[in-house]
């Protein structure tokens, strides 16, 4: 084997990052790396302007009207905790889906175990899609919100969120989306689609660094402060600032991450989101077709790749998925993600909860040669082991 790495784990984090993102991060941080929103010197003001400009860009990117309601966070899980914990009151009911990641499921489970809320999970169909009617059937007068993934990190299926948003709007329930897998690949128009909030991360298809993400809120959705600390405002008061975005932020911002997020947005907008998605899906289709032709290889939710992300999850008969991942990595230099992908309910429904599965996820820098190498490697495994 060669030392070349074939990186097919972009749903975990995109790699490599565009060189211009990394270079720009270092250059800008070296120039304006002061504490944004603190101090009265010009450098702090410059850093603060850069943060404000990035908030405005993020708001535009997600079709939200108010940059002040862009709240920076460490990642999508952090943002989801902020919005879920800040919304619920004792006795509330929440709806999520069986496709969801632990970033949604664990806060809900914690709240339910604590006796604060109850929740229900909408099922997905044989193609990995949640029927809006299934969500509607779970709504109650006490439902505080529907919180769900926009795109499954296991099956790669994009959910019909505009239809689900219509169902929610008809019942006066806000729809909160986990867009960790879709931001940067699928257009999201919060105002146009009736989405009350999105939780995003910067390090996947937005091509920024890890450690930066955020929550974007529509003006109608108010979220209470659940964590408290310094904001650089109202410092004489012991009460946490209540104006957005500081209401939901605390401590010194991850300025380097914010810079990287802005540069990642430059990359995505420069490439074109639709072009990125189309290119990656063409490669995903090639990979799907190649894997489907290998005896002993099972694919999950990949019959119809329309409305899909560049994610394919698979297993090889008779070989533990961790061993498949080890062989791909050790013998062929192919990086994938094995396990249950922090989404246990999906794997329970697929019947793969005990051993997990092997996930291939493509990115902007995946090539046809990478895909063909993955197909060839996978073809060796059942044959070589059997």
């Amino acid at each position, binding site marked *: 084997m060669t030392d070349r790495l074939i990186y097919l784990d972009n749903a975990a984090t995109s790699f490599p990052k565009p060189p211009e993102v990394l270079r720009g991060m270092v250059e800008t941080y070296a120039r304006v790396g002061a504490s944004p929103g603190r101090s009265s010197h010009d450098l702090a003001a410059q850093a603060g302007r850069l943060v404000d400009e990035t908030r405005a860009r993020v708001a535009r990117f997600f079709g939200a009207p108010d940059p002040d309601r862009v709240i920076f966070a460490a990642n999508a899980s952090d943002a989801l905790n902020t919005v879920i914990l800040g919304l619920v009151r004792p006795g509330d009911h929440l709806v999520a889906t069986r496709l969801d990641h632990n970033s949604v499921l664990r806060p809900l489970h914690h709240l339910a175990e604590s006796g604060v809320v109850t929740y229900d999970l909408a099922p997905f169909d044989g193609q990995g899609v949640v029927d809006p009617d299934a969500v509607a059937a779970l709504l109650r007068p006490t439902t505080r919100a529907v919180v769900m993934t926009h795109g499954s990190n296991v099956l790669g299926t994009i959910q019909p969120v505009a239809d689900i948003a219509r169902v929610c709007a008809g019942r006066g329930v806000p729809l909160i989306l986990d867009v960790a897998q879709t931001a940067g690949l699928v257009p999201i128009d919060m105002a146009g689609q009736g989405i009350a909030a999105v939780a995003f991360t910067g390090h996947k298809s937005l091509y920024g660094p890890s450690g930066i993400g955020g929550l974007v809120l529509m003006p109608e959705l108010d979220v209470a402060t659940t964590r408290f600390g310094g904001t650089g405002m109202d410092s004489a008061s012991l009460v946490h600032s209540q104006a957005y975005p500081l209401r939901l932020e605390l401590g010194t911002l991850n300025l380097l991450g914010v810079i990287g997020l802005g540069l990642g947005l430059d990359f995505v907008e420069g490439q074109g989101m639709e072009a990125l998605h189309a290119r990656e899906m063409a490669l995903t289709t090639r990979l799907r077709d190649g894997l489907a032709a290998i005896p002993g290889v099972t694919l999950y939710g990949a019959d119809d790749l329309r409305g899909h992300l560049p994610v394919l999850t698979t297993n090889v008969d008779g070989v533990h998925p961790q*061993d498949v991942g080890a*062989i791909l990595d050790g013998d062929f230099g192919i990086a994938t993600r094995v396990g249950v992908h922090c989404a246990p309910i999906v794997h329970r429904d697929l019947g793969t909860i005990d051993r997990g599965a092997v996930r291939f996820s493509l990115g902007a820098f995946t090539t046809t040669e990478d895909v063909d190498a993955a197909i060839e490697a996978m073809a060796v495994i059942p044959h070589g082991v059997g």
Partner: protein
Amino acid sequence: MAEPVRTRELRTVAGQEVWFDSEGFIWEPDDWTEGIAAELARESGIERLDDVQWRVLRFLRGYYLHNGRAPMNRELRNGTELSLVELERLFPDGIRMGARRLAGLPNPKTCLD
């Protein structure tokens, strides 16, 4: 949804009482002996470990004891001078449940809890 609990079981293997986790990995790697490896191998269908299998197990043990962790995939390939496909074939239960478990290394619980 119940909280996952890591359970363990006390068994007598090769005349020694040893704790195992729910997947059959030795709970405390220091409890491992070559006698335990041989008996676990028999349970998995290997009547007698051959020289190549012993070489793999001893490499895994040695690497673990020296580095405090299991070898990474390429280190395993380089250290055993076997491809991982060959390693998979060498043990009926494969690399993870076969070689690694028989060598008494900790259960690699990456996102499987």
